[in-house]
C-alpha cells in the first residue's frame, strides 16, 4: 500500500496527474470508499486492502471531463470495465494514467458475518501485502478467525484472471483465487421448471428496495439519463403499477447491459439486500457464449460485440424456439 501512496505522491508532485482516484478509509475497518486525492496531504487517508472491492472505472467518466490527467488504480477485473467504457466512448484514455494494482481476492463482510463473527473492531490479514490465508478478527466478544477464501466475494471464486487488460504501469502481485465455475449457478437455475424459476426470482427480487445502488455502481449503466428516470418513457410508471415491480427494473436493466456487462460483480457486491443480481447478467453472457462463441466484454477496446454485430455464422433466430 505504501508503494502506491509513494507513487501517487510522486506523480502529483511532478504534475503528471492532477488528481488520484483511489480508496480512502471509511468509518469502519471494512468499508473503504472511492475517493479523489488532490494533494500529498490528503493521501494519508488512502487505503488499499481486501475490502477495496469498488471498481473505479465508472468514476473515470466524470474524471475524463476534468482538467488534467487522473491517476486511477484498477484491479485486474476493473480493467475490463475500463476497456468497455473506452469502446463506448465514455471515458478518455488520454485523461487516465492507469496503475494496475495486484489483487489477492476481495472480501465480503457479509460472508464474515455469516460465520457468526459480529461486533467487529479490527481485521488483520486483509492487507494486500499479507500472505496470510486466515483473517484475524478482533471483536467485542474477543478474537475470532476465518479463512481468507471463505470470506471472499462470489466474483473472486470465479475470477477472470490476474492479467490487467489495460494499464500504464503495474504495482503488486495478484493471486490466483478461482476455485469455482462461473456458469454453474446459472446452469442450476436453467434446469429449474418454469414455475420454480419464477418463484426463485420472485423471492430474490422481492427483497429489492429500489435504492438504485446496483444501477449507480454499474459501469455499463452509464446512460446520461436512465429510462427509469426519464419522463420520455413510461417505464418507471409501468414498473410502479406491477404487482412485483422490481422484475421490470431488474430485467430491463439486464437487457440494457446485455453484451456490454463485463461481469465485474459490483451490482451484487453493493446490493444492501443481498440479491444475486449478477445471475441475470451472467445468464446473458452464457447465452452469448453459447450462441455466438465465447466473448468477454472489455477484453479489448476494438472487437465487435456479438449482439451489435452481424456475421454469416450467427445463430438463426429460430434457435430461440429450440432452446426455449
Amino acid at each position, binding site marked *: 500500500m505504501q508503494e502506491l501512496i509513494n507513487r501517487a505522491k510522486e506523480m502529483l508532485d511532478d504534475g503528471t496527474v492532477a488528481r488520484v482516484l483511489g480508496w480512502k478509509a471509511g468509518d469502519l475497518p471494512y468499508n473503504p470508499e472511492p475517493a479523489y486525492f488532490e494533494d500529498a496531504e490528503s493521501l494519508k487517508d488512502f487505503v488499499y486492502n481486501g475490502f477495496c472491492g469498488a471498481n473505479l472505472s465508472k468514476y473515470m467518466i466524470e474524471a475524463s*471531463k476534468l482538467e488534467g490527467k487522473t491517476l486511477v488504480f484498477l484491479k485486474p477485473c476493473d480493467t475490463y470495465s475500463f476497456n468497455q467504457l473506452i*469502446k*463506448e*466512448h*465514455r471515458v478518455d484514455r488520454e485523461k487516465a494514467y492507469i496503475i494496475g494494482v495486484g489483487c489477492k481476492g476481495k472480501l465480503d463482510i457479509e460472508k464474515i458475518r455469516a460465520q457468526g463473527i459480529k461486533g467487529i473492531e479490527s481485521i488483520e490479514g486483509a492487507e494486500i501485502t499479507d500472505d496470510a490465508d486466515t483473517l484475524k478478527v478482533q471483536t467485542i466478544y474477543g478474537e475470532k478467525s476465518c479463512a481468507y477464501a471463505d470470506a471472499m466475494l462470489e466474483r473472486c471464486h470465479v475470477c477472470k484472471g490476474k492479467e490487467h487488460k489495460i494499464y500504464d504501469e503495474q504495482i503488486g502481485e495478484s493471486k490466483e483465487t478461482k476455485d469455482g465455475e462461473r456458469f454453474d449457478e446459472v446452469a442450476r437455475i436453467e434446469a429449474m421448471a418454469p414455475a420454480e424459476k419464477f418463484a426463485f426470482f420472485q423471492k430474490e427480487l422481492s427483497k429489492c428496495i429500489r435504492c438504485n445502488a446496483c444501477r449507480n455502481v454499474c459501469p455499463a449503466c*452509464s*446512460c*446520461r*439519463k*436512465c*429510462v427509469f428516470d*426519464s419522463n*420520455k*418513457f*413510461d417505464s418507471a410508471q409501468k414498473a410502479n403499477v406491477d404487482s412485483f415491480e422490481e422484475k421490470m427494473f431488474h430485467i430491463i436493466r439486464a437487457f*440494457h*447491459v446485455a453484451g*456490454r456487462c463485463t461481469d465485474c460483480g459490483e451490482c451484487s457486491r453493493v446490493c444492501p439486500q443481498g440479491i444475486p443480481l449478477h445471475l441475470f447478467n451472467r445468464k446473458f453472457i452464457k447465452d452469448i457464449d453459447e450462441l455466438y462463441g465465447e466473448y468477454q466484454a472489455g477484453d479489448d477496446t476494438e472487437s*465487435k*460485440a456479438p449482439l*451489435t*454485430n*452481424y456475421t*454469416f455464422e450467427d445463430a438463426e433466430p429460430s434457435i430461440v424456439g429450440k432452446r426455449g
Partner: protein
Amino acid sequence: MQRIGVFVCHCGSNIAATVDVSKVAEMALMEPGVVHAEDYQYMCSEAGQAKIADAIHEKKLTGIVVCSCSPRMHEATFRKAAERAGLNPYMVEIANIREHCSWIHKDMEEATKKAVILMRAAVAKVNLNTPLQPGESRVTKRALIIGGGIAGIQTALDIADAGYEVDIVEKTPSIGGRMSQLDKTFPTLDCSACILTPKMVEASAHEKIKIYTYSEVENVSGFVGDFTVDIRKKARSVDMDKCTGCGVCQEKCPSKKAPSEFNRGLNNRSAIYTPFAQAIPNVPVIDREACIKFKTGKCGICSKVCQAGAIDYEQKDEIITEKYGAIVVATGFDTINLDKYDEYAYSQSKDVITSLELERVMNAAGPTHGHLERLSDGKAPKEMVFIQCVGSRCSDDRGKPYCSKICCMYTAKHAMLIRDKYPDVNVTVFYIDVRTPGKNFDEFYRRAVEQYGVNYIKGQVGKVIPQPNGKLLVQGSDLLDNRQILKEADMVVLATAIEPNPDVRKIATMLTASIDTNNFLTEAHAKLRPVESPTAGIFLSGVCQGPKDIPETVAQAGAAAVKAIGLLAKDKLMTNPCTAHSDELLCNGCSTCENVCPYGAITYEDKEVNDHGIREVRRLAVVNSALCQGCGACTVACPSGAMDLQGFSNRQIIAEVDAICR
C-alpha cells in the same frame, strides 16, 4: 387531441363472415380520440374511399384507422385517399383484421374480440401520430445482375436493350450457367449450347453490358435507386487484355488432376483452364489449389508457352466498387447432396449417376465424348433405370418438400434420346406421378411412352444394390400391379432434387432480401409481384425464386428486367419519411447504433449541448435521413432510448402494446 375516424371493412365475406364488423365499429367509438366509426362492404372501392373523404370533411378528422387487409395490400390506397381529402397520408394506420384475424380464425366471438384489440392498438398509435413529409432520392441508372446463367443473361440483355447500363457478376470463370451443361432441351430437343451461346455472345458484345466473371459480390450497402456494391474480382492469374484464348497453356499444363466442375467431376481438367469450349470470356483461369507453380514454386510452363505473355502469377484479387439503382438476383440452382440417400448406392457405384451427370455423359464435349457408357468399365449399357423424385416431394428432412418441377420432363427427354440413339437399350422409369403441365409437355412425355417404348412404372425404388458381376440390382415396387420388382440394371440415373445455389443465403443477407425455409428468395407477393423481392430495388430472376424450366426462366428474366427498367426510368424516388433521429439530451455517444446500422446512416459529431444548464461538448449520434431506411435497428439497440423512429416511435409502439394488453 386527435379526432379519429375508424373504418371497418367487410372485404365481402372475407372479414365479415368471421368478424362481427359492426361490433368492431361500435367498440371503436369507445376508444379515446375516436369521433367517427362505420363499417362498409368494400372500403377499398371508390364508394368506400369516398366515405373516408366525406368523414374527413364532415367530422374534421385528424387521423384515420382502417380495419381491413394487410397494409401491404391497401395502405397506399387509403393513404392516397386521405391525402386527396387534405389529410397528411401518414395520419392513416391500418389494423389488419383479415390476414391477422379473419383468415386464421374460425370462431366469430374470438375473432371479433381480436379484431377489436387490433383496432384499439391502431387507434392508440394514431393518437400519437404526427404528419410526416417524404423526401426525394436519386436513381443510379445502372443495374447489377448477380449470376450469369440464362436468367441473368436474359435479364441483362433486356435491360441493356432498353438503354441502361448493366453489369453481370458471375462466380465461375464463364457465363452460361447450368444451361451450358445441358445437352438437349425439352420439349423441342434442340441443342442447349446452340441456343444459349448466341445469347452469351450477344451479352458479351453488347455495349451496355459489362461482365465480371470469376467475381463475387462482397458487400452491398445503400438502398433502392442508390446501392453501392463491392465486387471481388478474384485473381485469374491471366491478363484478360493480353490473352488471345489460343488454349496452348491448357494443353501444356502438366497438372491435369483437378476434377472438372463443368463435367460434374466425372473427368479431370488442367490447373489452368477454361470450363468449356464456348466459354465467355475465352480466357482461362489458374486454379491456384491445383497449380504446381503455386503449390511448389516450380513449373511455370504456361507462362513459358504463352506467346501473348498473359500469364501473371502475381495477380491479386481486386475490389471494384460500383453504384447501382437496381439489383437482380439470378443465382440459380445446384442438385442436392445425396449423402442421405445411400440406398441408391450413389457413393458406392460409378454407374449410379445424377441426371445432370447424364447430361454431361450424353454431350459430345463430355467425359465420354457423347457415348452412352458405364463410367465404371466403359461398357455400353443394356438396361437403364431412371428413378424420379430423388429428394423431391420428400416428407422427412433428408430431402426437399417441394417438387423440383423439371425432372419429369428431362427424364422423358433422356429416355427418349437413349431409345432413339440406342434402340437396343431398355429404359425403365420409376415415378410417383408424371407431371407435365406446359406447352407441348404432355405430348412429349406420351411420345416417350408410346413412340419410343419407355417402360414407366408407378412406384418408388427402395434400394439399389451393386452386384459382384458389376450390375446393379434395383429393388422397387409397381403400385399399379401391386407387386415387388427386382431388376438388374447396367446404369441407374437419379432425378436428383434441385435446390437454390447455397451462396444465395449470403447474398440474401447482404441484400436484406428474405428467403424461405428452402432458401428460395421470397417474392413481394406470391401472385401479384412474383419477380420483386419485398426489399425495394431487388428483383428475382430464375430458379433462385423457385424451381422452373428454361422457358419459364426466360419469361421471368424478362419480367424482372421490366420491373428493373421501370425503376431505372425514374429520375427521382420518394423516400420514406419514417427515419430515425437521436435525442441529443439522451444520447450517450456510445456507437451502439452506428454498429447495428445496416445502411451506414449514422455518424458522430462533437457538439456543445445545454443540458438543463450544464453546457458541455458531447459526442452525439447524427442520422443522415437520406441514407436511413427506417429499419429501426438503432432504436432497439440504443441503451438509453435516445434513438427514435418517426412514424414508429418507441412511445407509439408501447402505446400499441399497452392497448393490446389492456
